[in-house]
């Protein structure tokens, strides 16, 4: 369990190293860096500085950063700087902040956790559709956009169900259920950063 936790914690490193090596400090590289910082902070707060305490507010902050990072990625690579999309992302971010402040300041914003992956899945499907419509002759395995979309799509698709039952898992007293839930989430998390690493290995489209 501890090994899986550490693996999940250091999983953004591969993407960061690849981005560093090929000088591709893109938006997703910064997202990976923030992921690593947040995981490190969470680990330090929960296990070193304040053992046993929950760090839910930090989690909510990362959800907001993730929304902005993915939103900006879709804005640039899928919607080709469409203003309406940018406004939609900004509106969703504002709604998320207000909702969190009003309802879920000291607990996970479960509504956002479930709703946002659906949005990411939708945007990824639109991105795949755009790739299929593209007339450019380009091998997909060498496309940054494609791998980034795959990373977000797989993460969103996997995390959607994980988050859907999160409230019940939190209330569940059985420890083994929590362990398996955490293991599944960790695997999806590692997979996300590995795929983002592959994306950062490719040249920017």
């Amino acid at each position, binding site marked *: 369990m501890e090994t899986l936790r550490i693996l999940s914690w250091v999983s953004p490193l591969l993407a960061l190293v690849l981005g560093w090596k090929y000088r591709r400090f893109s938006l997703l590289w910064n997202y990976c860096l923030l992921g690593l910082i947040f995981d490190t902070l969470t680990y330090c707060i929960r296990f070193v500085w304040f053992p046993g305490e929950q760090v839910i507010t930090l989690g909510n902050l990362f959800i907001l950063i993730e929304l902005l990072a993915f939103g900006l990625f879709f804005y640039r690579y899928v919607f080709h700087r469409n203003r309406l999309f940018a406004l939609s992302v900004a509106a969703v971010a504002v709604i998320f902040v207000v909702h969190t402040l009003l309802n879920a300041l000291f607990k996970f914003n479960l509504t956002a956790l479930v709703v946002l992956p659906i949005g990411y899945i939708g945007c990824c499907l639109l991105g795949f559709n755009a790739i299929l419509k593209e007339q450019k002759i380009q091998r997909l395995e060498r496309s940054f956009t494609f791998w980034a979309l795959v990373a977000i799509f797989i993460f969103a698709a996997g995390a959607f169900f994980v988050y859907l039952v999160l409230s019940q898992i939190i209330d569940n007293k059985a420890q083994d*259920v929590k362990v398996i839930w955490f293991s599944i989430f960790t695997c999806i998390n590692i997979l996300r950063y590995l795929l983002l690493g592959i994306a950062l290995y490719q040249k920017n489209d």
Partner: protein
Amino acid sequence: MDNLTVVLVGVLAMLIMAMGIIAFVILYKRRVIENQLEIERINNQVEQDMLKATLLSEETERKRIAAELHDDIGATLASVKLYLYHIKADGAQEERLKSAKDLLDQTIQNVRNISHKLQPTILDQLGLEKALSSYANIWNQSGGVRVNYQPCAAAVVLPKGADLQLYRTIQELVTNIIRHGQAQHIDISMEEQTGSYLLRMLHDGSGMDQASYMSNLRKEGSTGLKNIQNRLRILQADIQHNICLKDKKSEILVKIPRKMP
């Protein structure tokens, strides 16, 4: 079903669905790319065929003009020469007759040379190397420019029609070197390489590097260079222009594959 089963089944279902969509995108895009490449290949083929047809019709026309020059004008001039040699003149007339005979000989030779350049019959009869030697001789006889051809150690064997394209390319290159580069000395050589032949042309005129060649090629006009490029495309050959700063000589390298698809 308990929570755990729901999570496991749900996550698995979502991941399988995601993988399915990604696999579909990859396979579909691969198919689209294959189709696009096929279309591109067909377009290239059509373009190549059109180019060949254009050059073929040009060759046919050259042949016709060469035949007219050789068989009609050449024959007429030969008859005129025969008549002139039967005229007996004395005194001042004799000197004029001699000049007329010399001029006629020169004209007959010029007509022959033009005819030969237009339709190198020697190419069909004796092959590329002999034709190139003969071509070099024509320039050497004209005086002024020295063209030296160094044949390949092994016999040059090119596909049918390719030898004529190469011959025409060399003709055009030599003409360009003399006309635009003001060269006085040109060395042409052929050497055999693995799977290809390397044609090397070294001259003392003002040459150009590859970047200038590409830039001139893009300019409006420059028909000669475009013809060279078209012929090289048919031959699937590569051309490289170099300027040797050391001995102030320029070099043109043409790499011709032995087999063409």
